[in-house]
């Protein structure tokens, strides 16, 4: 009987081989795709069971995991409360994550392939796994100044380093406290989240990059001016028609200035002067002279309509397609269907500040593993070069005069040359203007470019203008960066 026993042994060996293969398939070959299946609670719990890396601003953690005694083991906490909410996002068991918490999840939770060798040593030495920490480009002083200056007004502030594109501040208001959503008391999290969703002010919305994009108003004139200067047919001193009101071609409608009167003697005004006092009629007619293609092409070069992520994806700003003359006139002063994000307008200022070279904005400076070895770091990248150095210089000169003798004297910083442009976008009756200001400083050696949007007139209401409401906020942010 021994021969069949041996043969039966072979059959058994084959059966065990089938089991070795099936377990290998599941635990090795298909493991990743099984882990990534939607509704896999283990993957979610696993991301809690490890010490998630911190998110750092300067040397301070703005998101850090703390040991707890409950089943989740680690509680994500945001020591500064709502201050960095729009950058870090939240990390919630029930509602997932947003912001950097989401974009850098693989590195923060330590599962990224970039951490493979480190994970290997962790496995071999039995150390407890630890995620990588993410160093932000945010400047804590600028962030604090922006949040304080914006206060309770609905709007957003973005500050960039014009030379690199590093985002120095990103604040939106109203915002939320991410600790409420990261809590392990899931019932409380649910009620907090529902309340935030129901709030008509939309506190979960990042108005700096994903807001309901507002018309940029007169800040868009910078793009008209850039297109004009780049065409070679205009200089700062070229004269434009600047009447008190401009009849829109083919209609009986008029496009007025913000004040009753001409922009200059005899209804004539230079390109520079028109920007300084924010003359609507001059820039509307300039837009029509340049033609919609030239204006649209310049807007596109600055980033309108282009995808961008910082690493959160940014809603592209909009310059509408195929316009008739009256629509072009209105679009040229940042009205009609033109829409821009505060980040986009900050990029426009930053480009002018950086001599015409537009840098890609970014939020993450570097990622370090538990041993503080740098795993990746961001090198500044050129986004595009929409204007030449000489155009940039002319625009800088024009923007300085806006602050020294124009609509934005409220942004002046003693001893520092500031270049800026206001915007006051009307929404028609029943709603106050959305007011803008974008600027950079010092104008001769820029270290910060900023854009401020305050919706619905802010605290000033009906009387609000960019110069009155938005410019002082920008000033405080720039001061914080420059160190005044």
């Amino acid at each position, binding site marked *: 009987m021994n021969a069949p*026993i041996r043969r*039966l042994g072979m059959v058994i060996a084959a059966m065990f081989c089938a089991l070795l293969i099936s377990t290998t398939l*599941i635990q090795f070959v298909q493991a990743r795709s099984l882990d990534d299946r939607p509704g896999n609670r283990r993957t979610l719990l696993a991301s809690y069971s490890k010490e998630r890396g911190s998110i750092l601003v300067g040397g301070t953690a703005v998101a850090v995991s703390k040991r707890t005694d409950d089943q989740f083991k680690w509680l994500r906490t945001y020591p500064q409360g709502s201050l960095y909410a729009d950058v870090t996002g939240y990390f919630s068991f029930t509602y997932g994550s947003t912001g950097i918490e989401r974009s850098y999840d693989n590195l923060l939770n330590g599962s990224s392939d970039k951490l493979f060798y480190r994970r290997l040593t962790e496995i071999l030495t039995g150390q407890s796994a630890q995620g990588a920490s993410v160093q932000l480009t945010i400047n804590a002083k600028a962030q604090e100044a922006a949040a304080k200056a914006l206060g309770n007004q609905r709007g957003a502030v973005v500050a960039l380093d014009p030379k690199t594109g590093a985002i120095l501040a990103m604040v939106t208001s109203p915002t939320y406290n991410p600790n409420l959503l990261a809590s392990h008391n899931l019932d409380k999290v649910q009620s907090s989240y529902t309340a935030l969703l129901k709030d008509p002010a939309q506190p979960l919305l990042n108005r700096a990059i994903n807001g309901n994009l507002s018309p940029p108003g007169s800040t868009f004139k910078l793009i008209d001016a850039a297109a004009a200067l780049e065409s070679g047919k205009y200089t700062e001193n070229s004269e434009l028609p600047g009447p008190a009101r401009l009849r829109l071609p083919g209609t009986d409608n008029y496009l007025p200035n913000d004040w009753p009167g001409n922009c200059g003697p005899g209804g004539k005004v230079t390109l520079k002067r028109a920007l300084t006092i924010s003359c609507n009629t001059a820039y509307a007619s300039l837009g029509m002279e340049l033609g919609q293609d030239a204006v649209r092409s310049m807007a596109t070069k600055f980033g309108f309509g282009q995808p961008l992520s910082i690493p959160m994806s940014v809603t592209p700003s909009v310059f509408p397609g195929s316009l008739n003359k009256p629509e072009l006139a209105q679009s040229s002063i940042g009205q009609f269907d033109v829409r821009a994000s505060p980040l986009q307008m900050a990029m426009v200022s930053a480009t002018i500040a950086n001599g015409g070279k537009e840098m890609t904005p970014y939020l993450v400076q570097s990622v370090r593993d538990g041993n503080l070895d740098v795993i990746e770091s961001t090198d500044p990248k050129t986004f595009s070069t929409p204007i030449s150095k000489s155009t940039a210089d002319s625009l800088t000169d024009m923007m300085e005069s806006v602050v020294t003798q124009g609509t934005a004297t409220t942004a002046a910083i003693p001893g520092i040359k500031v270049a800026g442009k206001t915007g006051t976008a009307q929404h028609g009756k029943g709603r106050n203007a959305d007011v803008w200001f974008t600027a950079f400083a010092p104008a001769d050696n820029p270290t910060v470019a900023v854009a401020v949007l305050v919706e619905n007139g802010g605290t000033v209401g009906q009387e609000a203008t960019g110069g009155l409401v938005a410019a002082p906020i920008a000033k405080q942010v720039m001061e914080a960066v420059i160190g005044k």
Partner: protein
Amino acid sequence: MALSLARPRTRRNTELVLLIIAIAIVLVAYANVGLAIEDSLPVDFYTVGGGFAVVAFAFHLVLRWKAAYADPVLLPIVTLLNGLGLVMIHRIDLAPGALDDAAPKQLMWTVVGVAAAVALIFLVPDHRRLRRYTFSFGLAGFVLLLTPLLPVIGRNINGSRVWIGLGGFSFQPSEVAKILIAIFFASYLVQTRDALSLVGRRVLGLPLPRARDMGPILIAWIASLGVLVFESDLGTSLLFFGLFVGMLYVATERRSWIIIGLGLFLVGTYVASILFAHFQERVTLWLNPFAPGMSDQIAKGLMGMAAGGLFGTGLGQGHPELTYYANSDFIIPSFGEELGLVGLFAILALYGLIVERGLRAALASRDGFGKLLATGLAFSMALQVFVVVGGVTRVIPLTGLTTPFLSAGGSSLLANWVIIALLLRISDQARRPATDTRAERLASEDTQVVTTRAPHAQRGRA
């Protein structure tokens, strides 16, 4: 004495060393769970751990005394598996949302199982004695197998009617029936193997046995189909039928039995899969464990195993409790999750070793009954592991068999300890030198009254 020089080694010291290693692994695992979940050694580490070691060492001493030539690897492996099972069951008890304390019960059943095994070693000094009760065992086995169908005591758990309940206890009689039937098969086939293998006609090139020799086989087929149909349990059915066909093949050395057996089984399963909805669901989930609107049990097990990956999360650091029946039917995914693919391979290797040692005992055994019984027991262990692990890893449709020594469940643990005791007894007989029995007998004649066992043993061998 010249005779004593020729004695082969008993290898009991090897067993002792292996046993110490096995117990050490179990204790480390137990400590690991405590440290991982509660940041401290389990409060009962020394009492429970020590008790477990005492039970294992007691069995070892019994073997030294009563079965000195038994296979030295079986006890350490089984101790390790039983211990790891206890640790995992305890670990799942600690998980949030655990219903009751399964580990103390399992520990109690471990003691009962070892006691039963020790009793068997004492009561059955020679496995051939079991042949005296061939038909009693057979009858008892089939009756036990069918008891879950009885009213009042039969229980339907998870769609399978393979349980009986007595008072507060529920018991899976098929586990014990498996052993009785294996003994019956072995004994019956040794008697009839010549008739089965030599007499018969050829049909289509297949040598077919005579109709009257087919009788018992058809009865076995009908009984296993009965289990399949009335108890809705593919696993038990497959186990019994596979066991029978395997033993039949070994006894007769005719491959036609395998072809006939497999054919009959496939026909039976196919018909069942058409007739029974419970069955179709199992098949659908086998093909697509993520089928929407159906049980996500397999899916959760798969996700658990995937979460474990190559090296596992570590004991106490995964979430096996997210899978239903994580400490019984799905204990293999629980191990896969916390010990990783490496750990599962190790567990499969341990099972492979048990089976291999069982077959080795069969090869070395000097009597046909011992050969067949050891083969049957080893093969049933292999089949059971295949059905259980294959079920949760989608090699075959999921069925409700227990994982030997690991799953929480008293009847299974008891039955498997008895199987190991039988294998130990057979291997002891196989390796015991022929001269040894005579020397013992001579020695005993010198000093004491002749026992009734020795002449009987000799008769059995003649």
